[in-house]
Each structure stands twice: as C-alpha cells, then as structure tokens.
C-alpha cells in the first residue's frame, strides 16, 4: 500500500528545499514580476485587443508565458534532485527509512509540482486582478481552471518525469540540462506545430483559445493531446522509480512499477497514434471527397430556380427539408446534387412520389424513372438530418494550409467552419448544409464552379429562445423564423444564437448588428453618436461605393457576431470569403481580430492625442468618437487584413499579406455578378481582378527580395496559364490570375482607351447584375465594342507558354514650342529581348496630376523607339511590362532634364524601329551577365545550412535585404534602383576584410583609352548611416598584369554611373574586382561600364 503520509513528508521537504533555492527564487521573480508589469502596462497603454476581447485569453496569456519559463526551470530543478541524492551523504539516512521508492519519487515529484503550482496560482492571480480591473470584460472562471490543467500540469509532469529519467540514465546534470534545453529550443523554434502539434509538449502552439460563445470546439483532441504528455510524464516517473538507485522495499513492487511505466508508455503511444491518425483520416477523407467530386463533376445538373428550406435546430444536429425547383441543363436520367456527408438524406420525393437516389459520401445522385429533357422543369423535395462533417469544407485548400495554426500573437485558435451546439449554430454555404446542384470543388472539371441566382426562402425553428439570422426579410410566425430574400442569391447562410439585435433603417437599407447577449462593449462608449448614425453611415456607404465604382445592391446590411473559431480562407476563384455573405458579414467574437474594434482603447488614445494637441485642432468628444467609428467601419473596405512575418534562420524573413476576410467588396461585386465559363473556374475572378485589382505591395521587395507578381511573372517562362491555374501557393496563384486578368483586358484598353473600356465593363456589370452570365458571351460583347479579336488571343492567353522581356532605356524628354501650344516629346528605347511579342503600358504623369496611358506592342527581338507626345510637361513615367521577365516588372522613371529643341519638329506619337539601344563604344557588364563572377562563399554551419534550406517552391533565388543582418554568402536581391537590362538585381554580402570578391570581366575588342564607371545604386545604408565611412575597394586590371587598387567613395556619388578612373586598355579581358573590404555592413556588386574616349 502506498503511504500518503510518506509522500506528503517527502513532498513537504522537497518543496521547502525548492523554495529555499536561489534558482527558484530568481525564477519566481523573473516570471511573476514581468507578468505583473505587463498586466499593469496593459491597463495603461496599448494592449492587444485579442487579450481583452475574449476574456478567457487573459488566463491563457499568463499561463502560456509562465509555462515556457517553468518548463526550463523544472528541468534544472528536477535533475538537481537526483544529483543532490547522490551527492549528499546525509540523504542516505532517509534512504534507510521504511518509505518505498514509489512514495519517495512521487513525494519528490509532488513537492516540485506544488511549488510550480503555487507559482501558477500567482500568475493566475495576476490575470484575475487584471481581469477585474477592466470593466467591460467579465471573468471566465472555467478558463482559469482549464488553462492551468491543459497547459501547465501536463508540461510539468512531462518535463519533471523526463528530467528525472534522463538524470537517472545519464547521471550527469550538465548533459541532461543541455540535452533538454536543446529539446525545448528545437520544439519551440523549429518543430513548432509540425506533425499536427505532436511535439508541442508545452501546448505553446496548440489551438487552445476558448470562445465565449461555443467554448472549445474540439475539446477531446486537446484533452487527448495533453494526455499524451501527462502519460509520458507518468511513465518517465515510473521508470525513475524503477531505476532509482535504492533497494526497493519489495521486489514485487518494482515489477508493478515497471508494468505501470510500460502501460503509460503504451497509453501515450496509443494516444499518439490516435492523434496522428485522426489527422490522416481527415486528409484521407478530403482526398476521398475530392475524388468523388471529380468522379461526379461531369454528371448532368439541374439549374435551380428556387429553394425553400425548412430547418429545425436540434441540440447537436439539424433536421431539414428542402423543396427544390429548377430546369435541367441537359437531358439525362441521373442528376447530381451534393450535400454535406455528415447529413443523412432520408428521402427524395417529386410531387409526393419517392425518387430513388444513390448517396456516395457528399454526392446525391438522383435517378428518375425516365430520361428528362434539357430545360425540363423539375420539383424535388429532400428530407435530411444530421451534423456537419467539416472535412468536406475547403477541399480547394491544401492540407498544409488547413493544418496551419491560426495564431494571433501568442493565442492559437482552433479552426472551425460550422457550429452546431445546443446554444449556437452557424451554417455557411461552404458547409453544404442544404443540397446543391452539381458538386463542389473539382480541379478536373471547371464546370463545378457554375453557380445560379436562385430564389431562396428559409424557415427556421430555433431551440429555446435563440434568435435566427439569415438573408432577407425576416418575420416570426408561431416562434418560427421566416427569411425571404428580395434578391436572388447564389447561396444562403444561417446563424442561430443568443443574439440581441441593434437595428436602424436609413434610407432604404436596414442596418443591423447581432451581438451575443452581454457582448456589447461599444454602445455606451460611443453614446454621442446614436443620433448621428443616420447621417454618418450613408456618408461612409457613399464613399465606399464611389471608391469601388459600384453600388450596394441589397436592402439590408448586417454584422453578425460569430464564434472566434470561425475560420475562412481566401479562394482562388473569388475575393469573397465565407465571412462575407450577401447582406451579412460574420464577424468573429467581439471582432477580436480587428485592432480598430478596441473602441475604448482607441478612444482613450484619441482623447490623449487631442489633449496633447496632436490632432491639429481641438476636437470635441463627439468628433473623436466619430473618428473612432469611421476608422472601424472603413476597415471593412480595406483590401488587406494583417501582415504575417516569418523569420528564417540566418536573419532573412518573408512577409505574407493576408487578405481582409471582412472586406465587404464581394457584396458590391461578387454577390451580384455571376460569370461562368466551361473552361475557367476563375472566370468571375478575372473580371473581379480587372475591376478591383489587388494592390501590389512593392515595398515587400525589401523583405522578400522580389514581389509576388514578379515571381508569378517568371513562372510564365515555363508554364501556361492553364498549367499554373491550380497552384498550391495561393498568394502566387492570386498574382497569376491578376496578371492574366490585366493581360486579358489590355487589348480592350488599347483599342478604345483605358477609361472608356473600364466604363463599358462597369456598365456591363450593372446591366447584368443578379443574372447568370456566360464568360464567352461577355468577351464577345467587348469584342464587338472594341473591334478586337478576342477568340484569337484567348487560346494563346490560356494555353501558350510565353514570357517576353525588355531592355528599356531612360526616357529623353524634349520640349517644342509649337506656336500656341507646348509640345513635349518623350522617347523610350525598348528592346524586346524575347522570342515573343509583348504589350506594354506607359503611364505618363504630367503636371497638375494628369495621367495619360499609352499602350503599344513590341515584336519579338525588335528594338523600338516609343514616342509619346503630351501638351503638359511629364513628371514621371511608369512602364508596366505585364507578364515579362523584367524585374521589377513595373519600372518608374523621372522625366529628368527637359531639352528645348528648335531645330526639328516633334515626332508623331508612334513606335519606330531602331538599330540599337546603347551608344557605340560603351560596354556594360551587369551582375546578371556571363562576365560577372563571385568568390566561393565560406562554409556556414551545418545547422544553419539545414535550417536555411527552406524554399518557397518557385525555384527563384532572391532574398530580402536586411541591412542589419546581411547574408553570409553572396545573395541576390532586386530593386528599381539597381542597374539591369531586364532584371535589376544586385549581388550583396556581409562586409569583411577583403576575403570575398565579385568580379566583372569586360571583353575589350579595341585597344584605347577608356573611362571606367561603377553603378552606384543609392544604397540605403549609405543614406541612413551618415557617420559611417562608405568606401568600396576595387582592383582594376587593364593589361593582365598586377591589378591596381582603387577606392570609390559612395558618398560623393549620387545614384547612377560613378567614374572610377581612366585606363588604357589593350585587347582582351579587362577585369574589375570589388572586395568585401568596407566599413559598411554589406557590399553590393551591381554593374560596371567602360566608355571609350
């Protein structure tokens, strides 16, 4: 029998020892103090909105932080216990006491645990105090217990057990400590959430955030995951008992201890297998769903005219009936529908007659008795019930993206796409909660994407007193909600929750907000605005409509609060995410993911700024509140949400722009335009991108070394659009579609002018709103109005592999006084260096903010002069090379000096063939040319090499430029300021003592006197760090003898060619070598030029 007295005796004195140790005292101080200070500072300055928006996050935050610290300290302290027992002879007197080994080790473990537990309680107390001091945040007591149990306890038991066991095994505290620290570092910084969080013993990456609406959506996997480490910890502790260097009281006990250890190891193993297999099963299920979609995508479909759904909410399921009316799109006996595989179809009837059907996972294959004709009217009634299988959602999203943790700061959020709980329900179209014609995503057949505007009607019986929210006019009859959208929709969604509704009718639109009861945190804060909303909201609406050139087409607009776990993904074929639906936007719990939604904090700071006079003039509180509200509302018009930065070892990093999932643009465009192509699942997207192109974030070049558009461009060198359409890299695919969209419509712009063509596109959209449009028919319409042969270009655009490239000279601007009017002639020399023709656009920015767009073709291999004539002085030019090998793909030029010309007439605006771009006697060797070479890089550490091998899959070798941490090996980056014929790149390297070099070999064919120039790029580091000496060391060899040393002071030279010296050079190679011997952080190797005198 185990004696609890002995255990508590050992524990009592073990914890006393721990408490007396300096190590623990310092750790306590270092962990509790910063937590206290952080909490205090959050009370008084900007704090993460997510922390207070969801109350459970307050204990979550503190537990996460303290857990990392205690995981490290526990290793040391636990291994110390074994060391102490072997080191101190006085320990032997306890070893001869009658306690069992089990009691002793458990006592020690409990002693350590309870000290850490008291530390955890202190952290939770701090959380509680912080929690109590914020008046619009309540205390989620359950979360305090949950995070303590889920994060701290398994971590401690595992770490203590592992440390004990390793110490018993290795008998060397330093080795154990080093091993375990390395293990922690690897799991924390490298493995992270890989292998489905399997190695995340601290729960640092595990999605543990608790929604206030639905709690934890996937509690069982979390409990099982934490049990893995709890079991392993117990197993290691049992192994420690087994291996303890003290004779056991009873040999049989030792056997039992070993059996216990084995059982817990086995238990952990079973849980690991279960954990991994559950993810594999998900993946397999998705593969299966995709295969089924592919299999049935070619089956006949019925285009819906109306769908009437009657749904009963059950505690953990739904029961529903859908009456479907439509017309067959082709003659057949069997027609395909799809419905979430978690929902069971009880019956399919037509005019009270049972219709046979085959259910194959998500597919319902309705088999009529006889073959129906094309266009025949069909009535069907589906009766079904069940739950939602979320594996069916987002079949277009890669497993990798699905598995990626949704993290905001330290908070990890379990993703969920549907909710059916006794207190809450959310069903969006992605869940396929009602039968739909055809199949969902199928990469093998673009026809899956065909949608139809349909008349919907939804009747809902909600549980208890819950409130149902959907599209359309809502009425409640006998407790039943009836929704009747007055527009035809492509889909309908439903939310049921304990909502309270805030509503206001302004003009013809009902503006509503459904918040979960007690979640309102803003009405009191923005109390001054209540009476002015009727003016403010239409004003904002008008601004958004004008900026988008489209009107809001619905009679209702609503924001609906949904659980924090509700996750959506950007799609390849639309900018709309599931969070935005016709008339409704599903906003996650208290808008935790929108910083601007922290009304209190933002208003507090506004008041602070106003008090300090930083807002220009004194604002009234009303104005300040208005600013805060406007700022929040305009977020719904922003294209981009957050930026995600990830750091690679060695200092380089990548930045990803996350599209704003709440952007309401789809309500202006996507839910009114339904473009369909039998060849392109992206048809709607192409038009959407043309109407509302994604903004290129060129500054991202500084971080990524190249823009995503340029990456996409370069892919066209080897693949056609059709090949690249379904890339796993969503950001890249998006860029590909954007480029192809611009290219598709550019001939139209060329034919009738950019503004005119765009106007005709918007006019077409307005005329065809809420209608199903055929893509080919639309393009033929534009063909008619622009006299452009769309069909001829289309097949090349879709299937050919081509990617032109251009060398473009600096512009020469001349002024002519032509009697009454001023004439400015701008000449660009352009060489199409590829074997395919290409189209370019030059945007000329003139004085008084006027812009002119000039479009033209350059044939393969041609060198041309493009002449642009304007009547006002051009200020700058932007040349868009579209799909091309040019990096940057869009080049900016300043107009520079304007020469007044009197001896000739200005040329006529057109394209003229020329013979060459460069002046005779000028030889330029760029870092992209074959004459350029670099020294071998010195080997870097194995670990760094291993970690640095990350690849984005594009095979492009450009890196971002961080002047604080330049690369240790020669690397390439791009920027407009660098010299380049069609790729403006530079090689750069961390500075050194001259041990690395870059060399240009310039072939000299004609002996003579030459001026040698080096391209100075206007280096950031030179500009920003004025105190630094900015000199480059060159060795020039003109005759193949000993090279001469030259120094170039970068500060004395502006961007452009800087003279290095004059040399007499004979025939053969003239070499210029640049070393890394500079005081700057990095050295850049770009281009050299020889000009014959």
């Amino acid at each position, binding site marked *: 029998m185990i004696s609890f007295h002995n255990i508590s005796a050992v524990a009592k004195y073990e914890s006393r020892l721990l408490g007396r140790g300096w190590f623990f005292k310092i750790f306590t101080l270092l962990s509790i103090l910063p937590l206290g200070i952080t909490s205090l500072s959050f009370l008084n300055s900007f704090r993460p909105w997510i922390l207070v928006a969801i109350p459970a996050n307050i204990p979550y935050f503190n537990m996460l932080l303290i857990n990392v610290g205690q995981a490290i300290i526990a290793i040391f302290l636990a291994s110390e216990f074994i060391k102490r027992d072997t080191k101190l002879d*006085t320990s032997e007197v306890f070893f001869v006491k*009658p306690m069992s080994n089990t009691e002793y080790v458990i006592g020690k473990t409990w002693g350590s645990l309870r000290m850490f537990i008291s530390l955890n309680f202190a952290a939770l107390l701090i959380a509680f105090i912080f929690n109590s001091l914020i008046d619009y945040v309540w205390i989620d007591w359950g979360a305090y217990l949950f995070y303590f149990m889920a994060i701290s306890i398994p971590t401690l038991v595992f770490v203590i057990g592992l440390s004990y066991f390793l110490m018993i095994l290795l008998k060397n505290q330093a080795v154990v400590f080093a091993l375990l620290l390395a293990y922690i570092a690897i799991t924390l910084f490298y493995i992270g959430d890989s292998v489905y969080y399997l190695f995340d013993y601290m729960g640092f990456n595990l999605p543990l955030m608790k929604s206030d609406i639905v709690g934890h959506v996937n509690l069982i996997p979390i409990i099982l995951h934490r049990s893995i480490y709890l079991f392993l910890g117990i197993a290691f502790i049992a192994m420690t008992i087994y291996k303890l260097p003290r004779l056991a009281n009873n040999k049989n006990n030792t056997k039992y201890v070993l059996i216990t250890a084995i059982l817990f190891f086995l238990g952990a193993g079973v849980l690991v297998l279960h954990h991994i297999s559950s993810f594999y099963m998900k993946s397999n299920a998705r593969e299966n769903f995709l295969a089924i979609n592919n299999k049935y995508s070619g089956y006949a479909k019925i285009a819906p005219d109306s769908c009437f759904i009657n749904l009963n909410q059950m505690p953990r399921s739904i029961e529903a009936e859908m009456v479907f009316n439509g017309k067959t799109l082709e003659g057949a006996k069997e027609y395909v529908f799809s419905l979430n595989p978690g929902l069971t179809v009880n019956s399919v009837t037509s005019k009270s007659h049972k219709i046979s059907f085959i259910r194959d996972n998500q597919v319902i294959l309705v088999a009529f008795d006889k073959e129906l004709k094309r266009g025949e009217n069909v009535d069907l009634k589906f009766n079904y019930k069940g739950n939602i299988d979320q594996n069916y959602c987002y079949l277009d999203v890669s497993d990798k993206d699905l598995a990626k943790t949704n993290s905001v700061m330290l908070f990890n959020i379990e993703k969920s796409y549907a909710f059916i709980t006794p207190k809450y329900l959310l069903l969006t179209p992605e869940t396929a909660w009602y039968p739909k014609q055809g199949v969902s995503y199928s990469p093998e057949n673009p026809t899956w994407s065909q949608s139809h505007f349909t008349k919907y009607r939804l009747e809902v019986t909600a549980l208890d007193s819950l409130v149902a929210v959907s599209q359309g006019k809502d009425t409640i009859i006998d407790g039943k909600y009836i929704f009747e959208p007055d527009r035809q929709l492509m889909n309908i969604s439903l939310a049921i929750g304990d909502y309270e509704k805030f509503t206001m009718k302004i003009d013809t639109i009902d503006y509503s907000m459904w918040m979960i009861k007690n979640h309102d945190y803003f009405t009191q804060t923005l109390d001054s605005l209540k009476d002015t909303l009727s003016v403010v909201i239409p004003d904002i609406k008008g601004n958004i409509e004008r900026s988008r050139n489209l009107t809001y087409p619905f009679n209702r607009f609503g924001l609906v609060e949904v659980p924090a776990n509700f996750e959506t993904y950007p799609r390849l074929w639309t900018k709309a995410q599931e969070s935005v639906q016709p008339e409704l936007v599903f906003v996650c719990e208290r808008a935790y993911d929108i910083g601007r939604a922290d009304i209190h904090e933002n208003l507090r700071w506004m008041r602070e700024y106003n008090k300090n006079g930083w807002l220009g003039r004194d604002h009234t509180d009303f104005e300040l509140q208005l600013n805060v509200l406007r700022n929040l509302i305009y977020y719904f018009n922003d294209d981009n949400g957050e930026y995600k930065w990830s750091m690679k070892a060695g200092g380089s990093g990548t930045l990803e722009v996350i599209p704003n999932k709440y952007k309401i643009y789809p309500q202006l465009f996507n839910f009114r335009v339904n473009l369909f192509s039998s060849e392109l699942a992206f048809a709607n997207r192409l038009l959407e991108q043309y109407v509302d192109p994604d903004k290129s974030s060129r500054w991202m070049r500084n971080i990524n070394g190249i823009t995503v558009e340029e990456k996409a461009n370069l892919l066209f060198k080897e693949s056609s659009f059709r090949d690249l359409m379904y890339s796993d890299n969503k950001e890249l695919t998006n860029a590909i579609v954007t480029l192809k969209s611009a290219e598709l419509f550019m001939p139209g712009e060329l034919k009738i002018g950019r503004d005119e063509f765009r106007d005709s596109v918007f006019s077409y959209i307005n005329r065809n709103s809420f209608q199903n449009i055929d893509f080919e028919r639309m393009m033929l319409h534009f063909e008619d109005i622009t006299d452009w042969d769309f069909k001829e270009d289309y097949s090349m655009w879709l299937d050919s592999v081509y990617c032109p490239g251009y060398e473009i000279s600096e512009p020469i601007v001349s002024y002519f006084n032509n009697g009454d009017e001023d004439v400015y002639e701008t000449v660009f020399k352009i060489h199409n260096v590829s074997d395919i023709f290409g189209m370019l656009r030059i945007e000329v920015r003139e004085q008084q903010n006027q812009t002119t767009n000039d479009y033209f073709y350059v044939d393969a291999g041609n060198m041309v002069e493009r002449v642009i004539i304007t009547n006002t002085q051009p200020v700058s030019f932007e040349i868009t090379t579209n799909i091309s090998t040019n990096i940057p793909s869009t080049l900016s030029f300043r107009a520079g000096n304007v020469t007044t010309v009197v001896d000739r007439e200005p040329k006529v605006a057109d394209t003229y063939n020329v013979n060459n771009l460069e002046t005779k006697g000028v030889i330029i060797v760029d870092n992209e040319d074959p004459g350029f070479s670099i020294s071998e890089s010195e080997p870097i550490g194995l670990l760094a090499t291993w970690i640095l091998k990350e690849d984005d899959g594009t095979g492009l070798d450009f890196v971002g430029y961080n002047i604080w941490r330049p690369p240790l090996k020669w690397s390439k980056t791009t920027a407009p300021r660098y010299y380049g014929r069609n790729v403006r790149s530079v090689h750069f390297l961390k500075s050194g003592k001259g041990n690395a070099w870059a060399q240009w070999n310039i072939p000299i064919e004609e002996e003579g006197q030459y001026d040698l120039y080096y391209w100075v790029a206007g280096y950031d580091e030179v500009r920003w760090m004025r105190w630094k000496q900015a000199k480059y060391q060159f060795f020039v060899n003109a005759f193949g003898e000993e090279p001469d040393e030259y120094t170039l002071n970068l500060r004395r030279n502006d961007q452009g060619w800087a003279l290095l010296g004059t040399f007499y050079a004979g025939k053969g190679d003239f070499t210029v070598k640049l070393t890394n011997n500079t005081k700057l952080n990095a050295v850049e190797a770009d281009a050299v030029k020889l000009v014959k005198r």
Partner: protein
Amino acid sequence: MSIIIKGLNKIYPNGNHALKDVNLEIPPGMFGLLGPNGAGKSTFIRILVALMEPSSGSINMYGYDILKEREQVRKIMGYLPQDFRFFAPYKTYEFLDYAAMLSGINSRRERKERVDEMLRSVGLYEVRDRYANKLSGGMKRRLGIAQALIHNPKVIVVDEPTTGLDPEERIRFRNLLTKAAGNNVSIILSTHIVGDISSSCNNMTLLNKGQISFVGAPEELIKKAEGKVWRAIVPDEIFQQINEEYPVITTIPVANGWEIQVVSETPPCEGAELFAPNLEHAYVYFIDSKFDLWRKG
C-alpha cells in the same frame, strides 16, 4: 532476539570479493565491528542497512529477512553513515522532523514531542533553528545519532562515528550510544578506532580482508594476545631492525635509545620482557599483515 548473518558474500562487478562467507550473530547491546580500512566494514554495513544487496547469504534481523522484508527491517533500524557532513538546506529541527515523518511517526504532536526530546538529549535544542550545514562537526554527528534514534529503533548502525571528533565530543558521543544501548537495542558500531570499542562494546568482531577473524568479548580478544606483547629498551640500530620485522605498537624516545612495545610470538630482541596486552595490541596481533606473514612464515 538478535541479528543472525549466514554465509554472507559480496562480490563487486569488478571482481573484488569484499565479503567472504561471513557468519555472525549479533546480540543486543553495543557490538563493535573492528577492522582496518578496506576490510569490508562499509560493505558489510551497507548490506546490513539495506542500502546494498549481498551476492549471497542471509541476514535475519529480529525475525525479519533483510532480503525479503526490507520495509520491516527499515522500520526497526536507525543508521548513521560514515560521512555525515553535507546537508540539503534543512534546519536542525526540520531534519529531525523529516526523519521522524519518514520513520512512521504520523502524529504531528507526537513528532514534535519526540523531536524536541531528541534535540534535548543530544544537546542541540538550543540550535534547533540553525541550518544543519552550519553546525559544528560534533553537533552534526549528534544530529546524526538523533535522527537514527528518533523512532526508537531496535537496531542502530553507526559507521565510523567518532572519526574527526575531538576527545570531548568523542566521549559525549560514546555516552549517547551507551545510553541508547541500555534499552535492549542492538547497536553496531563500525570503527577502526580501537578505543571506541574498548570503552563501549560488550561484544565485537574483527573483520579483516572480508573475513571474520574474531568474534567475542573484547577481553577474550585481549586474552588471545597474552604472551605476544613485549617491551624493550633498544638502541637506534636495533629499533630499525625490529621495526622492519615486527609490528611495533609504541615507540617512546628514552636517554639511550627507544622504549618500544612489540607484538611477537617470541622475544623480538635480547632483554625484551613480556607486557600485559590491551585491545590495541590484540587488534594488531590479529590484523597486522606483517605479523600475519611472520606468523605464517
């Protein structure tokens, strides 16, 4: 009741045969375990206190088999190890309280009374709140014996308890042990200091090279050395010669050379006279290797 040891052997993994067929019965009272360094005393003690397993043999301790009933054995045993200097940061009182708790004194009140009583009896009550590490060497030993006695054990094993203590502390310590032995308790005192045995043990054994050389009362051991101890006054040259051949127990410089006491079967030199042996002489007679060789040779 007593401790019965039969056929005890211990062979270490490196082949060192530390104990060779030890057979012994230890009655209640003070029992001395005498032997030179490396004789196997510590191995014997560690086996006796269940810190080590023998290779073969058995020990029955007051009716309990030490190999099979360790828990019972540990309940009736107190142990003071040889080195008792380095402590975890416990206070004197806490150390005893911890030992008392682990010895099965569950009642807090009883434990407090017992700890206070022990502290008083070993003269540490005044320093009960001092960290054990801060106690003097003698105090540490007293604390050691206090923890060994805290639960009134039947068997107390003390390993080299007086090493390094000053005479006053040594006497104090011996008295503590003697007092404890009065209560029908077996106290096994392992030492290489003959004086500790002679002044406190009624029974003893001599352990040499892992084997029992002698078992009995110290007087019996002394008796066995009668006629084997010689005293002589010798010049320097003779002294050197004797010192090489025989174990010389004492050497006192005198006017014309050295007064020496020698253990020998025969007179070691001319003019040597028999001398009444004490325990030390007897111990040397039994243990000294030179003598052993000489004796065998």
